């Protein structure tokens, strides 16, 4: 369902058609056509790299305003662990949680709690020996989407458990319904998100038919109100219920640490993640049981909807963890079943040239010929990210050779020459 719904979108008015985003996109999902960027939706993994790099702020992440919570009787905030790294001199997570109550939520349920449950369920599942090793973390939806379109052999290495966000949403709803007596549809659960990938995962999940998350609010959007409310707090209720393992998920390496197994690898930044996946696919990574990959540098603290420098946020999370117990939430025996994916992660070959191999081969031959005749400067002026991508666009009928300004110049010069020889 809704396979191509995305959080990342373009603000046409602000886009001036420069080449920053097309060159940065890890899946070559952006073209500039008629002076404006356009996103090839089937290729977009919502990593947010284009948002990060656009100097005109023309790339945006769709998320919900705080007012979404108004349509529910009982409202629960689900703060991502990365939220805690956004505040200067924060000594206690409770201050953030109380701040969330002050701006209108009825209760809070830290996503760190779901993270602890998933850590434990994953450990148990790994012990059964049912999983294909190395197991790849499922927590960063941008990475899972990348695997889905680019790494066919790795789809069945992805940990088939729901994300901490999803687990927390389900538990929060259930507990609140038991506590308040309200039916679950009157209870709204809102994820406070560091990134667009998680917005998409809530709106059009890969793991399951429908997400229990009712709305996603960007950290950057809620920040001003939240930090103002935090400053005004007179009393701090003890609301926090998570430990080192859960809060640690904010940083790259945190999730892997929660596996309590030394044979892990953690890579952050989409380009580094791609390198790891490539090597893994070629079976060049041995003796590793678990691979944590985060699309953002530093982990989710580096999400494009956060506001603080990821390395500063990382250090803060590190400090906050000091005073916490190891873990406060435990997975029930059936957790791995209860929180198992109900969908399967199927490879979607959106990058292939044609469904027919022979036709694809003919197309590739043409692409290589055209590429040879392009200047190979990869300047991006044609609107495609590289000369090779341009050749592919031409063969697919989505661009013409004279979109290359160098080819156009040559043709104009030749025309001028033949005109002057006529006169």
């Amino acid at each position: 369902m809704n396979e191509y719904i995305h959080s990342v979108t373009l603000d046409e008015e602000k886009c001036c058609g420069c080449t920053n985003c097309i060159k940065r996109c890890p899946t070559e999902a952006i073209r500039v056509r008629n002076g404006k960027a356009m996103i090839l939706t089937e290729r977009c993994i919502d990593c947010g790299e284009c948002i990060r790099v656009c100097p005109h702020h023309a790339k945006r992440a769709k998320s919900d305003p705080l007012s979404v919570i108004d349509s529910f009787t009982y409202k629960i905030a689900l703060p991502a662990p990365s939220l805690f790294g956004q505040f200067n001199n924060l000594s206690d997570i409770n201050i953030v949680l109380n701040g969330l109550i002050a701006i209108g939520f009825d209760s809070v349920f830290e996503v760190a709690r779901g993270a602890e449950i998933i850590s434990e369920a994953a450990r148990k599942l790994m012990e059964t020996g049912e999983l294909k090793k190395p197991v790849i973390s499922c927590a960063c939806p941008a990475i899972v989407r990348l695997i889905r379109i680019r790494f066919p052999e790795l789809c069945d290495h992805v940990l088939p458990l729901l994300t901490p966000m999803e687990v927390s949403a389900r538990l929060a709803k259930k507990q609140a319904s038991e506590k308040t007596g309200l039916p679950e549809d009157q209870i709204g659960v809102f994820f406070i998100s560091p990134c667009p990938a998680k917005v998409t995962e809530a709106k059009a999940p890969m793991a399951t038919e429908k997400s229990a998350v009712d709305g996603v609010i960007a950290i950057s959007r809620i920040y001003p109100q939240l930090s103002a409310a935090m400053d005004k707090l007179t009393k701090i209720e003890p609301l926090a219920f998570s430990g080192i393992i859960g809060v640690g998920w904010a940083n790259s390496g945190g999730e892997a640490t929660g596996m309590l197994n030394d044979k892990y690898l953690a890579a952050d930044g989409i380009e580094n993640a791609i390198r790891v996946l490539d090597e893994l696919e070629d079976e060049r990574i041995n003796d590793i049981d678990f691979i944590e990959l985060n699309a953002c540098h530093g982990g989710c603290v580096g999400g494009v909807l956060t506001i603080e420098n990821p390395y500063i946020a990382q250090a803060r999370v590190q400090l906050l963890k000091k005073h916490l117990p190891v873990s406060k939430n435990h997975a029930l025996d059936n957790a791995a079943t209860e929180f198992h994916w109900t969908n399967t992660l199927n490879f979607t070959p959106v990058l292939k040239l044609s469904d027919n191999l022979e036709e694809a081969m003919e197309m590739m031959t043409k692409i290589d010929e055209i590429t040879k005749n392009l200047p190979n400067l990869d300047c991006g002026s044609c609107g495609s990210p590289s000369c090779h991508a341009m050749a592919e666009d031409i063969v697919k009928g989505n661009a013409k050779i004279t979109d290359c300004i160098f080819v156009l110049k040559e043709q104009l010069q030749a025309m001028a020459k033949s005109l002057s020889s006529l006169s």
Partner: protein
Amino acid sequence: MNAIHLFYEVSGDDFARAGEASGDVKQKLKSLGYDKTAIRNAAIAMYEGEINMVIHAGGGVIDVDIYPEKIEIKMEDKGPGIPDLDMAMQEGFSTAPPQIHDLGFGAGMGLPNIKKYTDKMHIDTELGVGTTVYMTVNANK
């Protein structure tokens, strides 16, 4: 028609670049929508060959022909040649120097792996002249 021919030169003095050619072939096979298993097998076998070219033979050239039903790879170098081919094909046999072991190579698994992941493999080698490794990976269409 119906073959795509690719050609690569592998430099003998740049370790960091070893794997570029096999990486490119893998990318191309993926955009063709080629048989997944064949892609993996070809990528693994070719990578081993590429590393051997760099470590043992000072680089070389690679020709790849992609057909709908198979991938043919020819890896040719002008290195020292292999004195005893049967020995070289054995798992665990390696003449790689210690500094190569530090990089994680030299387990003597490269040639056996090529054999394992390909459907056909043949080596021509002559001392002082060079080595050519031919391999074929069949596609399950």
